């Protein structure tokens, strides 16, 4: 018998605090596997967001620093600028990255920092109990949009992968989902590619991952995963929006 599947070395053997069916767990694994496969674990610093993934350091077997809410790209910039030999990634939720952290992500992208952003879009603020996020879908009910997100009052969701792709400096921006083995494997490919670009000093890479938050969506894990591939994917098309990794 040979091992066909096991925990990547870049993750710790830990129980997470995530809810049943939460997408964060899968994404952790994909990042961990990518670091393993690129032999980056021992020279990586990851940046935990403020959000459900705040305890990243309890789950990752790499050095981790906790950022104030939304500021992970600024920390990443700081680390990379003084230690360009380190692999630096931020792991951020949609509230963290697209709401309070809009300035920091846009500017890290605008500067073309040689870092990798793992952006977990679960269409709400998970950690604080399910408020509207900048990515909450029109009509979606959250604790702060009790009658559903009304675009006339709450505005429209941000499509971050496209926004980042529209800037000059980033080399890679893509959106993936993690609803089934096939899409998860594809997501893994994109994440690994993003880290590969960083390893090759190509510049700023950004992967947006559509992810389930069953608890706050009031859905079972299975319903939630379906909603990702259904309602969310309809609003947030999957794909690679920019890839100049080869040309640079």
């Amino acid at each position, binding site marked *: 018998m040979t091992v066909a599947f*096991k925990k990547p070395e870049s993750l710790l053997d830990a129980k*997470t605090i995530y809810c049943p*069916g939460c997408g*964060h767990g899968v994404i952790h694994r994909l990042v961990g596997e990518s670091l393993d496969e690129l032999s980056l674990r021992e020279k990586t610093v990851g940046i935990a967001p403020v959000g459900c993934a705040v305890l990243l350091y309890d789950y990752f077997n790499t050095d981790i620093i906790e950022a104030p809410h939304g500021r992970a790209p600024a920390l990443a910039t700081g680390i990379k600028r003084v230690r360009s030999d380190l692999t630096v990634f931020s792991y951020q939720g949609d509230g963290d990255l697209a709401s309070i952290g809009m300035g920091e992500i846009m500017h890290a992208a605008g500067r073309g920092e040689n870092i990798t952003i793992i952006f977990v879009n679960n269409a709400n603020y998970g950690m604080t109990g399910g408020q509207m996020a900048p990515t909450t879908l029109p009509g979606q009910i959250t604790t702060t949009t009790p009658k559903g997100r009304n675009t006339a009052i709450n505005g429209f969701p941000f499509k971050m992968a496209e926004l980042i792709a529209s800037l000059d400096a980033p080399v890679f921006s893509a959106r993936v989902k993690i609803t089934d*083995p096939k899409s998860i494997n594809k997501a893994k490919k994109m994440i690994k590619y993003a880290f590969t670009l960083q390893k090759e000093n190509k510049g700023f890479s950004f992967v947006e991952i559509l992810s389930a938050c069953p608890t706050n969506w009031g859905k079972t894990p299975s319903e939630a995963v379906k909603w990702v591939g259904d309602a969310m994917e309809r609003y947030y098309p999957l794909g690679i929006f920019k890839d100049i990794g080869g040309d640079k």
Partner: protein
Amino acid sequence: MQKVVIDIQKCKSCGLCIEVCPKNILNFSSKYNEAGYNYVECIDDDSCIVCKSCAIVCPDLVFTLYKPDKQEVKNG
């Protein structure tokens, strides 16, 4: 040796693996783990084709999977 090794203490009973298993060999146990979840068990390890679907969708790294070496398969 088993192909499907389940770390029952990590399972959160989300059921995603059960849905995705092509051989329908995963199911909820009637027992609860320390965290209070009725965890998943593999009811027919022999039938497992090690497609890894369960492990890939599982958010909690519950699965470790082993593939029989070619030799073993032959000896099946």
